[in-house]
């Protein structure tokens, strides 16, 4: 199974952040196909469609209207078909309590929204590389925690 295209989903209510994220994805070596959502509800409606091709990684902003990132995380971890999805929290909050709480609730990755485009690219690249190794190696996914 060669590395073809990774399917990625991002839910973020900030349009600029979505655009930056997409541009960063396009500039890295690993090929990705990204689906963007304006809030948690749109994302969850999509993920629970019948026959949908599930993304390899879901990036979630924490503060979103209608349905926030923590609610999405909770629903994903309690949904039989979604519970094994790799979830990355993508947030401006750097409060230790927030970070710990998302990990305890089952997030795999916590990314503090980087200040520069270069740092964002680097963070995304690190996440995708690691994700790929976890998909193809005998590494224990239950213990996959990463903070950037």
């Amino acid at each position, binding site marked *: *199974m*060669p*590395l073809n295209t990774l399917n990625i989903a991002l839910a973020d209510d900030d349009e600029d952040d979505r655009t930056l994220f997409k541009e960063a994805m396009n500039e890295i*070596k*690993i090929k990705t196909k990204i689906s963007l959502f304006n809030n948690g509800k749109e994302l969850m409606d999509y993920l629970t469609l019948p026959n949908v091709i599930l993304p390899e990684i879901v990036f979630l902003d924490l503060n979103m209207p209608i349905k926030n990132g923590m609610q999405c995380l909770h629903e994903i971890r309690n949904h039989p078909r979604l519970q094994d999805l790799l979830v990355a929290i993508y947030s401006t909050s750097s409060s230790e309590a927030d970070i*710990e709480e998302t*990990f*305890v*609730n*089952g997030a795999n990755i*916590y990314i503090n929204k980087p200040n520069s485009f270069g740092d964002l690219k680097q963070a995304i690249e690190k996440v*995708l*590389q*690691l994700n*790929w*190794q976890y998909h*193809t*190696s*005998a*590494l*224990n996914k239950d*213990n996959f*925690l*990463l*903070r*950037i």
Partner: protein
Amino acid sequence: MQLMRIYLKFDFNLICKTVLQEQLDALGMKYTIHGVGEIEFDRRPTLEEEQEMASLLGNYGIEIMDDQQMALVQRIKDSVTEWINDAENPKIYNFSTYLAEKLDYSYTYLSSVFSEATYSSIENFVILKKIDIAKSLILQNHLTLTEIAFKLNYSSVSHLSAQFKKTTGLTPSSFQKIILKRKERALNQK
């Protein structure tokens, strides 16, 4: 009601090998298992046999790879795991020599195949694998961090801690705290 937990330790190589043997025996062809990721047959399987094999093994999440480069990448990963698990190896060999001798290709060639297929280096994978084992050992809670560092051939406990932090973004103790809390919460929900 009194709750009781038991803890399991798996020998993944043995599990894989047993599954392979059971399924391949059902196929009725002569075979030899080289490591876990490579099987040699005494003749070329027919198309029907190949399909049957794919479906038998598919039940266990085992996939037949048709790309030789990916197969080589898999063998590199298996060798990395073996090398780390055998505590004596690092003292006798340096890793690149070990890998080159075992797989019979130059280390430069292996490195380039690996990087091309995974967008990451063999060295990175070694670190990832060592940290993965360190995580399991931390959670088993039988060994101190110093003992884990020694077991995984780190020069010191601070070297292990630093590599752990660099790889995961977390310190070993906050990692342990998070996983324990996660398990507690899962237990409470049941």
